[in-house]
């Protein structure tokens, strides 16, 4: 599949899939032969059906009685890997850069493609550096707690901020970032 074509089915970039899978392995959510099979199955240069991502999300959900803290940690771990072992360090230099990177769904568009009504958006809606406040509007098909973890991990990764928290208590699709 070429990068220029618009796929009829939603697809996720292999690098994101690999980060997600590696985070699952690092956190021992999958282990042993299942871990080897999961990682062996993912080619960083390919695009994968969104269904494969959802399958891993489902597997994580079924593995834990209290899954929310795990999902949050998974998102953080993913972005830690992305920053320290992936392209992250070349793209952002400060925690706030990660938030700006989401402007116009720029970040999400590089890792998920397909019909807009399915892939949705992940867009920086508000940003106030003085107050340490930002809002991301998300309508992606991904789990929202994992997305909270992604924001925490992405903003924390450069190491210039002391405090980061993301909440979406009132509206699951409105991710409120507090950073200092």
């Amino acid at each position: 599949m070429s990068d220029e074509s618009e796929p009829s089915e939603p697809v996720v970039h292999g690098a994101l899939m690999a980060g997600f899978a590696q985070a699952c392995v690092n956190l021992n959510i999958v282990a042993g032969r299942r871990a080897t099979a999961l990682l062996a199955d993912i080619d960083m240069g390919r695009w994968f059906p969104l269904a494969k991502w959802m399958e891993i999300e489902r597997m994580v959900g079924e593995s834990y009685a209290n899954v929310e803290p795990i999902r949050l940690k998974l998102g953080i771990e993913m972005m830690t890997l992305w920053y320290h072992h992936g392209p992250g360090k070349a793209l952002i230099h400060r925690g706030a850069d990660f938030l700006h990177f989401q402007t116009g769904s720029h970040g999400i568009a590089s890792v998920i493609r397909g019909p807009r009504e399915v892939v949705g958006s992940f867009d920086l809606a508000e940003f106030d550096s003085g107050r340490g406040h930002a809002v991301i509007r998300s309508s992606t098909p991904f789990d929202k707690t994992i997305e909270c973890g992604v924001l925490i991990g992405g903003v924390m990764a450069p190491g210039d901020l002391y405090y980061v928290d993301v909440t979406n208590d009132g509206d699951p699709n409105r991710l409120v970032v507090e950073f200092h």
Partner: protein
Amino acid sequence: MTLDEILQGRDPDRLSELSREDMHRLFWMYKGLLKRVERDTAYWQATNDNLRTAYERLDEQERELARAYQTIRQDLEIAQQVQHALLPKDHPEMLARFEFSVYHKQMTEVGGDYYDFYRLRDGSHAIGVFDISGHGVSAALIMAYLKAQLVQTMEQVSRPRDIVEYLNNATVGFLREVRRYATVNFVAFGERTFRYVCGGGYGVLIRGGEVHTFNKGDPFIGLRRRAYSEYELPFETGDVLALYTDGMVEAQDSAGADYSTRRLHELVRSNAELPAGQILQRCLDDYGQFRRVDADDITLIVLRRRAA
């Protein structure tokens, strides 16, 4: 005094010297740490809960496995009793004519070695020794099937060659379907001789200090329809006959050498003057010292014709 200098010097008394900006940094640093601890605590709590649940599931699965194992054990014990019941026990008519001793050991609770004593339609006595391919329950089921087929066969024919051919023709379809076969060694005794059919089985006659090895070139039972050959050898008072399956002679020592037919035959020959039971025991003692571990079912029958 900056926050970094205070932190490096580990001197909390000088916190009051911090600037407003550094106080803010310290505040968010502390809040950030608390938040991290909160997230990590929640994560480890969830992981711990999950571990506890996994252990509970593991315990339950272990109990289920133990129950299943117990059921299988009981079934295997019953199967062992059934198989044992299928083997010959009292043989007063054979004992009147022959002095003999039998060693029969299955690798597991049940197995594929099978022997039996028969009274043929013409009144003569016979022995059959079979080794069904494979081990365990499936081989034992085939053994029970062969025994049933042999009972029917005996009602139809009485020459060893005819018996084996009839048995092979009656069972080849089924055995091929279940991908199994059996070696056969069938011996029928006359007044001063015996006739035998041997397809993959093992037999040796010791007569006058000489070793006469069975011709075992006929096919196994269950491979294809084919005619079998029948051979006749003299068998008089004092002669010793040993029939066995491959379990003993193919067993290996720690260096990987086979026990071998030659070693067993020489042992039978050199002890041929002893009673059958002692010959068999000498063989077992020698085998016990040789082999590293049993690798197959074992059957060994030593038989001597009594004086008339």
